[in-house]
Structures are given as structure tokens and as C-alpha cells.
């Protein structure tokens, strides 16, 4: 198995000092490699450019290209409404188009009947600490909506247009077929860390060599001085030169005060965090849960990151639930339940009628002992009743996800399960063994789909200064996006959003050990971890991409926010800097007993 990653340029892709004399010998190696079939290796030159093609498949891929060209020439409109997945996997991408062309046109309903299947998850006895139930009897008559692929339709951020969210079932079949037949990493047995180059070829950098993506938001003189002083302070802190660090942090605060815009604000938060670290005055207990929820709500209103997270995760869940009559979503961080109204509405609009929908919401204990989970569950129940979706809610209080005993979560037979985690997995990295326990719990819930949204950054490195630098770049971009998106949020929303982010900065910079919960890791790193744990990707496609892009354009008035496709996952970034990543997973189906 070819373990070389795309940074290793001995294959002739070196950037400097290329000489013609080197070429002859390298050309021979390439030719030999291609003639001999190349074994299991990927073509390195294409890999550098973002395309994974096995040497042994090259001829086959070329054939597929020729076939498609023939068809396109004859009937150019045939593939116009195709949903595309993972363009990096060239063979799979081409095959999915060929399959679509080979299928004779069927009605959507015929396809649905053909592919109807029922999940059979493990039946676990029910035990829980807090139960809220609402059952609805009425069924909702749905009308077939035809707003799929309509460029002109208006999308309300709070609701996903139901049928637009449902790809043709044949696409789903194609997707699942692709996962099995494509030569890519998705159909392989659990990946070992050394295989990471194949997992994330399009993403630069391996787990050990971080990619540092910077968009310089401020080249202004003061801005540079500010950053310089911050870095020097971080260095001093790392070297335990606290006297120097103290002097520097005061200087930063001075400079930051006269720095307008995002840079000044970011610097202020980082300076405060550094000061806390210097004086060791980090609060031991974590933030009051209800306060943290409020902050997140303001963040939700001010910028599209959470909306993107919810939207893309819901998209994957809807596709996974397309034909299920009973569905159960387990939300690892219910908070104010902002993700679920849109899903409930989309389920209501599902052709053929909505499924029975159960939601299990997990949340931390409340300081004032109120049952926040129940309150959210109640609100959602009211919405569900109003639009005719049979709904049940159960809340679980847990200090940590690692405390959840999967048998407590009432998984019933014949229900399709989705586990949803928006920014809830990275805190598990703060305690040894916690993440493994959580992933293991998830596996025992036998989910049809697991949706994960995480920050796209490595804030979990062992070296303080590196962590600090990474975080500085990351939050600079985030703060810049708050300022620069063109919409003017209310002053309070903006301020609270900044405080929300400031809390994260504080945690990354000032705390350590079990207290440091903002241990963000990149998608590349999560891919490896998930593969090792026995999960494989369910690709997010061009339909989700397009709708997410359109929603962003509506929300932010265009410009800075960018959706990017990354090997089957979607990322949202500010200009060229990806900031959050959504990925969808399922248990690896092994063919051998």
C-alpha cells in the first residue's frame, strides 16, 4: 500500500530545482508503474492535484470518460439534474454518472417502493432519568412539491424545503453503491493512521505537520505590531518568563485599544486569556449552561456558521431517513433545540407523509435545577403538533457524553436512528478514553447516520505557542467575518457573539488538562479517528452544497462566506479559510462475519 502523502515529492512533483536530467529516470518509473498496474497505489501526480485514482484503475477511468463523452455529445441535457458526490474519487464520480444514465427513467414513487427497507437495531430496555412524551395521532396529507433544482426558489433559513431536501432515491442507491464499489478508502476496513494520505489527499498536511491557512485581514502597521506582541507574549508564557509576559500583555492591551475592527477585538480577547494564564486565574467550573446557551443563540443569529451546521447535518439525516416510517434522532447537545424545527418541517413535507419522529435531547445539568430540556421538548412538541408530525421527546441530563450509558437511550426496533453532534465531540478529547467510550456508545446505538460538525482547526496540539498561533489565525478569521459580512446585526447580538467566541479563546489559551475542553481538531484528524473506530463516510453531495451556498447568499448578502467540498464532506469558510466542517458517517458494513 502506497503510504506516501502528497507532500512527499520524490515522485517528481518537486517544486524547486527540477532538472531535465531527473526527468528521464522518473518518466521510466511512471511508465513502469502504469504498465505494471501500480498495485494498490494512487497516481501521485493526480493526487497532488486533488484526484484519487489508482494506477491500476487509470485505463478504466479513461474508458468511463470516453463513454460519458459519447453520451454527452449525443444528449447533453441528460446529466443536468444529477446530484454529484465526492469529485476527488474520479472513478466513483464517473461511475455514478454512468449508472444514472443506464437506469431507465422511473417515477419517484416506483423507486421508493423498490428501495423501502426497515432497520433492525438492537432492542434495549428503556431506563432514563427524565421523560417527556407527546404522541400525535393525526396524519398530515402531503402534496408533492416540485421545487427540486429550481434556482429561483426562495429558501427560508429556518426551514428546509421538504422535497428539495430529498434527492431522488436512485441517487441514494447510487451513493450507497458507490461506497461499495469505489476503490477509495470508504470501502476499506478500518483505516490505520498511516493511511491518512488516502483519506484526506485534497487536504494539505498530515496529522503531524499542520497546515496553517492564513488570510491576512490586516496588513496595517499597528495590526502587525499587535500580532507581534501577542506572539512574543505567548512565547514568554511558554518559557515561563511571567514577568516579561506580564509586561507584554499590558502592551497588547494598549495597542488593541487603538486598533479598530476585528483585529482589535480579537487581540483583546487573546490578551485577556493570556493574562488569565499568567496569573492562573482561570475559573475552575465551566460556564453556567443557560448563559452559554444564550450566548450561542446570539451567535446563531449573527452569522451563518450554526445555521450551516444545522442545515447540512439535517440534509444528511433527511437523506438517511428517506424511507423510514419511524425515526429517532439523538442530539448530543440539545441546547435551545434550534436545529430541529427545520427538520420537523422537512419531515412533514416528505412525499408519502412524515414518519413518527422521536427526539432524544442530551444536555448538562442546570444551575437552578430547571428542566431546560423539558422546556425545549415541549416547544418542539407544539410545533410538531401544529404541522402534524407524530412526535415524542425524551431528555437526558448528563455532565459528560461519556457518562451516557447507551442502554439508557431507548432505541426501539424498526426505527431509523440518527446521532447528531454539533461541536460536542471535541470536548471528549479532554479526558483520556472519553472519546473512545462515546464512539463506542454511538456504535451500540446502531445509527443509520451519524452527523458531526466540528471547528476546522487544530487547537489541540501539545505545544502552547503552536496552539496559540493556530487559534489566533482561526479566531481572527471568525471575528473578521462577524464584521465584514455586509449585514448589520444588532449591537447586542454582535457583542454576545464575540463574548461567545471569547469564551472559547479563553479556554484554548488559559486552561489545561481536563478543563481545556475546546480541543478542536481538523477534519483530517477526525477522518482518521472515525475510520479507526469503525465508521465510514456518507458523502454529502452537490445538492446540499448548492442549497447551503444559496442560503448563505441570502443570509449574508453574498461575498465572504464560502462552501467547499472536501472528499465527501462540506466546509464553511470565510473567503479561502475553512472554519467549520460537516461530515456524515455510518458504521462500516463488513462483508465477512
Amino acid at each position: 500500500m502506497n503510504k506516501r502523502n502528497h507532500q512527499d515529492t520524490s515522485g517528481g512533483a518537486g517544486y524547486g530545482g527540477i532538472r531535465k536530467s531527473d526527468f528521464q529516470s522518473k518518466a521510466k518509473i511512471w511508465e513502469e508503474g502504469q504498465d505494471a498496474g501500480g498495485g494498490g497505489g494512487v497516481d501521485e501526480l493526480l493526487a497532488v492535484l486533488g484526484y484519487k485514482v489508482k494506477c491500476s484503475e487509470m485505463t478504466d477511468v479513461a474508458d468511463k470518460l470516453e463513454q460519458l463523452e459519447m453520451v454527452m455529445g449525443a444528449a447533453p441535457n441528460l446529466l443536468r439534474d444529477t446530484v454529484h458526490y465526492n469529485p476527488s474519487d474520479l472513478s466513483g464520480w464517473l461511475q455514478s454518472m454512468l449508472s444514472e444514465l443506464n437506469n431507465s427513467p422511473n417515477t419517484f414513487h416506483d423507486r421508493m417502493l423498490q428501495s423501502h427497507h426497515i432497520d433492525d437495531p438492537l432492542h434495549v430496555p428503556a431506563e432514563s432519568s427524565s421523560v417527556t412524551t407527546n404522541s400525535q395521532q393525526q396524519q398530515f396529507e402531503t402534496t408533492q412539491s416540485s421545487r427540486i433544482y429550481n434556482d429561483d426558489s426562495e429558501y427560508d433559513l429556518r426551514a428546509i424545503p421538504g422535497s428539495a431536501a430529498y434527492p431522488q432515491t436512485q441517487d441514494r442507491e447510487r451513493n450507497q453503491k458507490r461506497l461499495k464499489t469505489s476503490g477509495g478508502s470508504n470501502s476499506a476496513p478500518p483505516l490505520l493512521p498511516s493511511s491518512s494520505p488516502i483519506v484526506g489527499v485534497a487536504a494539505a498536511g498530515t496529522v503531524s505537520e499542520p497546515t496553517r491557512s492564513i488570510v491576512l485581514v490586516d496588513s496595517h502597521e499597528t495590526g502587525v505590531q499587535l500580532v507581534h506582541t501577542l506572539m512574543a507574549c505567548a512565547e514568554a508564557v511558554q518559557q515561563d518568563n511571567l514577568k516579561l509576559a506580564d509586561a507584554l500583555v499590558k502592551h497588547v492591551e494598549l495597542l488593541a485599544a487603538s486598533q479598530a475592527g476585528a483585529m482589535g477585538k480579537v487581540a483583546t480577547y487573546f490578551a485577556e486569556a493570556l493574562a488569565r494564564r499568567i496569573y492562573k486565574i482561570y475559573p475552575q467550573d465551566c460556564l453556567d449552561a443557560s448563559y452559554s446557551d444564550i450566548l450561542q443563540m446570539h451567535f446563531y443569529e449573527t452569522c451563518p456558521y450554526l445555521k450551516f451546521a444545522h442545515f447540512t447535518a439535517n440534509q444528511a439525516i433527511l437523506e438517511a431517513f428517506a424511507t423510514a416510517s419511524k425515526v429517532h434522532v439523538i442530539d448530543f447537545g440539545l441546547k435551545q433545540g434550534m436545529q430541529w424545527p427545520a427538520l420537523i418541517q422537512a419531515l412533514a413535507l416528505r412525499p408519502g407523509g412524515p414518519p413518527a419522529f422521536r427526539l432524544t435531547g442530551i444536555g448538562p445539568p442546570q444551575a437552578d435545577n430547571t428542566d431546560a430540556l423539558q422546556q425545549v421538548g415541549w416547544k418542539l412538541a407544539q410545533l410538531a403538533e401544529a404541522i402534524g408530525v407524530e412526535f415524542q421527546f425524551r431528555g437526558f441530563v448528563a455532565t459528560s457524553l461519556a457518562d451516557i450509558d447507551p442502554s439508557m437511550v431507548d432505541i426501539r426496533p424498526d426505527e431509523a436512528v440518527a446521532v447528531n453532534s454539533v461541536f460536542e465531540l471535541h470536548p471528549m478529547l479532554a479526558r483520556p478514553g472519553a472519546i473512545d467510550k462515546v464512539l463506542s456508545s454511538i456504535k451500540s446505538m446502531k445509527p443509520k447516520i451519524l452527523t458531526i460538525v466540528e471547528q476546522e482547526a487544530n487547537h489541540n496540539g501539545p505545544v502552547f505557542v503552536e496552539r496559540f498561533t493556530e487559534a489566533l489565525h482561526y479566531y481572527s478569521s471568525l471575528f473578521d467575518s462577524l464584521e465584514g459580512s455586509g449585514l448589520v446585526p444588532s449591537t447586542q447580538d454582535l457583542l454576545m457573539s464575540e463574548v461567545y467566541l471569547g469564551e472559547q479563546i479563553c479556554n484554548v489559551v488559559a486552561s489545561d488538562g481536563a478543563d481545556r475542553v475546546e480541543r478542536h481538531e481538523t477534519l483530517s484528524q477526525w477522518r482518521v479517528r472515525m475510520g479507526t473506530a469503525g465508521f465510514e463516510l456518507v458523502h454529502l453531495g452537490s445538492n446540499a452544497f448548492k442549497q447551503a451556498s444559496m442560503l448563505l447568499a441570502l443570509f449574508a448578502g453574498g461575498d465572504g462566506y464560502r462552501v467547499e467540498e472536501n472528499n465527501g464532506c462540506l466546509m464553511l469558510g470565510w473567503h479561502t479559510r475553512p472554519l467549520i466542517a460537516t461530515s456524515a458517517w455510518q458504521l462500516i458494513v463488513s462483508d465477512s462475519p
Partner: protein
Amino acid sequence: MAGSNEVNRNESKMVVPLNTWVLISNFKLAYNLLRRPDGTFNRHLAEFLDRKVPANATPVDGVFSFDVFINRSTSLLSRIYRPAHGEEPQINITDLEKPVTAEVVPVIIFFHGGSFAHSSANSTIYDTLCRRLVGICKAVVVSVNYRRAPENRYPCAYDDGWAALNWVNSRTWLQSKDSKVHIYLAGDSSGGNIVHHVALQAVESNIEVLGNILLNPMFGGEERTESEKRFDGKYFVTIRDRDWYWRAFLPEGEDRDHPACNPFGPKGKILEGIKFPKSLVVVAGLDLIQDWQLAYVKGLEKAGQKVKLLYLEKATIGFYLLPNNNHFYTVMDEISAFVDSNC
């Protein structure tokens, strides 16, 4: 004459390595999906399909990169590529714009290709190419993320190129020891076209550009030239798609004799007597539009301008994207010599 599809496929397959054929055919297929007959462009799908890569301040093979705003209000970004100097495992954010230290540092302003509609500065194919240029020319490369057609027609791309040129010219940290920024313009396909027009504007505004590098530059005209007829559909490109891109870029109602498309045509500018930069023009012998490219070279010669033509007989479009053919190395050597010769 186009000939049968069967013949065409075999022809193009015979002149390039298989992985190159796959790469360029993949683009061809993808691009066909994106262009709509009514002249609109499926931008969402284009962005979905395009392989992109973030900038990286950690040096890889002696090159690091970061993105900057040339113009905040128009969101005009550029990706800057700089050589790392051995010792540094990581570049501090404060050192990204550290002044260049060599006696003479060429600064290459690069305009990526894509027929004015495709690709971006952070497209992987162009990130890779720019990184090579840093090593080959010991230069700083500034890759401009110019606005694309059909959403942004002429002269947007040129305006963005012009903004970038001014920005580069005014960076003190890019100055060589003589307190001047040593600027070269380079680009492939539509990028090559942009090079010409930005250079023209530079001359008119007295900004010195030391040289133009045009790789398979995109030019055209109303007339159907011999090469267009002979190569139509044979080596990945058709007349029809070329027409589509010009219709998407040129102002509505304008034809291909517009000077943006046909700089030495009936509406072209006179270049005699002006101090136009020396040019290196690379023409692929199997490129559909070579007659227009050759006409461009002739136009420069007739105007008394210094131009070197590098004609690669058996090269197709995109040969410079993969280092697996002789043409690639020939061109890299020529570019290196072209940028070096001023020292």
C-alpha cells in the same frame, strides 16, 4: 474538420500520457456540465467540483503561502507564495510580509486560466503551478483571484489585474535592493490574455513591467482560422466552447473582434513606439487557437516589440499542469531563463 469522435479520442490519447489525458478529459467533462446553452453558468456545481487547497504558512518543499486582500471592499484576494529559507520550520504570521532579502527578487503576478469562467487562485492545479514557479524563478508569486465571467464580464478581470499590479508595485517589502519591485506578469489561457491587457495599462501609466509570460494565451477573432478548423474537437477543445466563453466574457452585443479578444484585430490598439514589456509566448502545437496566438506574436513583432515564441509541436492544452512530459521541463527552463536574464 472534426471527424468522428472515435478518431478524435484515439488521437488525443496518443499524444499525452494517460494520466494527463484523464486529467484534461475530466475537466472537459466537468466543464461541459457547467456551460448552459443560454449562456448562463452553473456556478454552484463549478465550485463544488473544483478541487481547492488552503494556503499554508508552513513551508512545503521550500515554499509557503498566505492569502491577502488586495481590495477589501471588492473582496479581491490574492495568494502570495514565497520561498522559505531552509531553517524555518514555520513562518510566523508577523514574518509573512517580511521584506525580501536578495539583491534582486522577481515578483511574478500570476493570472490563472479557466477561460475567464473557471478556477480560482486556490484551485489545486494553480496552487501547484505557482509553487513550482517560486522554485524555478526564485521569485515571489502573487496569484490573483480575479472576478470571473459570466457573472463579471469585461473589464472586471482586467480591473482586478490592474489593482493587483498597483498593490504589488506599492509593497515596500517586495522591493529589491534598488528600491524597486521587479514585476513580471504571467498567466495561462485567459490569464495570458489578462497579462497582455494589464501590461498595456501599465505602460500607459508608467509602471514598469519587466516581462510578460503567456502560456497558451486565450485570444480569438471573428474569422475562423485554419487551426480552429483543423483541430476542432480533436484535442479536448472545440470551437463551440471557445465561442461560449467569449460570449460570456465580452460585453453583450460585442463580437470576437473586440480588442479584449483580438488585440491586433481591426479594433486593436497600436503598439508601435511604446515601451511594452518583452514577452515569452508559449504555443501548444495541438491547440485549437494557435493561429490567434501566432498572430499575437506577429503583432508584437510588427510593432517592434521584443517577443520570444516557444512553439511546442506536439503539446496540447494543459501540458504544464503535470511534470510528466518534455514540454513541461522545456517551458520551465525557458521561464526561468526569461525571469533571470535581467540580473
